[in-house]
């Protein structure tokens, strides 16, 4: 009994550190969430933590901030734009990468190895290296400020990682599976669609989640190629311009920020395992 008390006491610092860190990580987001439901007067006159003095007081919470940012501040349009940008910018690079990764893993052609080493090298190239030439190209071809322009840009930036990961994954698939399929007269295309892709669903899912979150949360690429016009700007661009224009209107800024975070959070909580895997796999991206 005394021993058990002793070990529990010895563990007090451990719990203090861990619970302290958990609170430090959680409280900023909690403050944002609570403030987004408070009235303008309340947010500007008292700290968000004061709601805990009287948490059930009717009338202190409101959805008005969300209505205001979605309509008047253009976050509704920006949400739609983010979807329009992100969905093709997720599937396009994975499709293109899967084709190339199949060739890299299971076909023989000259320079195969050299080309793959180049892909590995391109993994960490900073985006900044590509902005000016691509922007010039886009200005000449009128792709600047268009959705296809940003789909293709994200496809380019997502490709090295997707090719690298998928090629490594494909290469692990047992050779016998292919050989027996080819003996049965399957074409390379059939082997791709009927053997390789179905076996790769977990890898494709992790990659898709990583790419989705990366594109959804991207600011720089959208800022450079789309610009700030409301018609095409995604949530991140819109939110960052609201930070300038709304200044101290924290009741609106907090609601706008939460709207930009909502979808990634849903994915995080519903697909946590794939989410973590995807983020880990994607960590080498440049």
């Amino acid at each position, binding site marked *: 009994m005394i021993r058990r008390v002793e070990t529990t006491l010895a563990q007090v610092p451990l719990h203090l550190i861990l619970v302290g860190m958990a609170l430090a990580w959680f409280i900023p987001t909690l403050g944002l969430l609570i403030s987004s439901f408070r009235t303008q007067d309340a947010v500007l006159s008292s700290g968000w933590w004061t709601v805990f003095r009287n948490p059930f007081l009717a009338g202190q919470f409101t959805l008005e901030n969300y209505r205001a940012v979605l309509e008047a501040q253009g976050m509704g349009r920006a949400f739609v734009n983010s979807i329009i940008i992100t969905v093709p910018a997720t599937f396009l690079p994975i499709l293109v990468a899967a084709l190339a990764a199949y060739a890299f893993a299971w076909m023989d052609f000259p320079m195969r190895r050299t080309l793959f080493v180049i892909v590995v090298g391109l993994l960490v190239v900073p985006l900044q290296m590509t902005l*000016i030439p*691509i922007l010039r190209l886009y200005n000449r071809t009128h792709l600047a400020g268009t959705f296809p322009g940003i789909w293709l840009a994200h496809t*380019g930036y997502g490709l090295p990682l997707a090719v690298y990961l998928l090629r490594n994954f494909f290469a692990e698939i047992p050779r016998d599976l292919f050989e027996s399929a*080819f003996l049965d007269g399957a074409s390379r295309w059939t082997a791709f669609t009927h053997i390789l892709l179905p076996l790769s669903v977990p890898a494709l899912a992790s990659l898709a989640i990583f790419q989705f979150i990366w594109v959804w949360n991207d600011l720089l690429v959208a800022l450079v190629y789309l610009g700030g016009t409301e018609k095409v700007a995604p949530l991140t661009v819109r939110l960052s311009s609201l930070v300038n224009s709304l200044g101290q209107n924290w009741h609106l800024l907090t609601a706008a920020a939460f709207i930009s975070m909502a979808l990634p959070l849903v*994915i995080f909580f519903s697909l946590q395992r794939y989410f973590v895997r995807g*983020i880990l796999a994607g*960590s080498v991206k440049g």
Partner: protein
Amino acid sequence: MLHKRRDWVPWLYMAPALLILGVYLVYPIVGTVYYSFFDKRSEHFVGWANYKWALTSKVMHIAFRNNILWLIFFTVFVVGFGLVLAVLADRVRYESPLKSIIFLPMAISFVGAGVIWKFVYAYRPKGAPQIGLLNAIITALGGEPVGWLVNRHVNNFALIVVGIWVWTGFCMVVLSAAYKGIPRELLEAARVDGATEWQTFRYVTLPLMVPTIAVVTTTMVINVLKVFDIVYVMTNGDFGTEVLANRMYKEMFNFRNYGRASAIAVILLLAIIPVMLINIRRFQEEEALR
């Protein structure tokens, strides 16, 4: 390899990827290096002038200094916190919710994180009710409110904290996987031999985790060299907080100086090239084992 005969077929599968990589990565890299030797509109060759500016001007010195601050403090703290969490969380029953909370910011954009923390740092003059959490705590303890994002003594660190808040979860997850891979018997044996918890960590756990710590650290270094969003949203590089990527963006869009902007991009690439070579070498070693 299978199907040796029709040699052109692999190129059909490769073609879309090669085309896109060529247009979006290879061509621009060459282009940016080329532009970095030309004037602002890329009309006249200027030799090394843009690099001379990049290495000697005052604004660039501030950017370099801040990138170095980020490099040191961000990297040390994300890897350090990640390691502490990986090792300690393993000992408690609430490990899984704890890790979810720490990892959560990875789902949020840097822009969103910027807004969250700008609110934490909100500043009101002395006497007014503080609505920012940090200044509320400080004034409640009897201190003076601090302008976290404008005070040049603290603002860079205030921004670095946001980066740490976002990336610690990533380091924790990677390091935790490495920690759980250490055979339990090794740790038990050390404890049975009378090693304290600290000695077990210092002489058994840590040496075994060094390779993973190295990988995580290089990943964080790459991240920190390109840091942009947090600074753009929270201070836009004002009050002495500018970093290289933000300076490049300003040269590009505010001053339309493509020569200088390209030179900054090339400097970023040069800083990252050692990592690129390490990656390629590691890949070739792995391939040799296949």
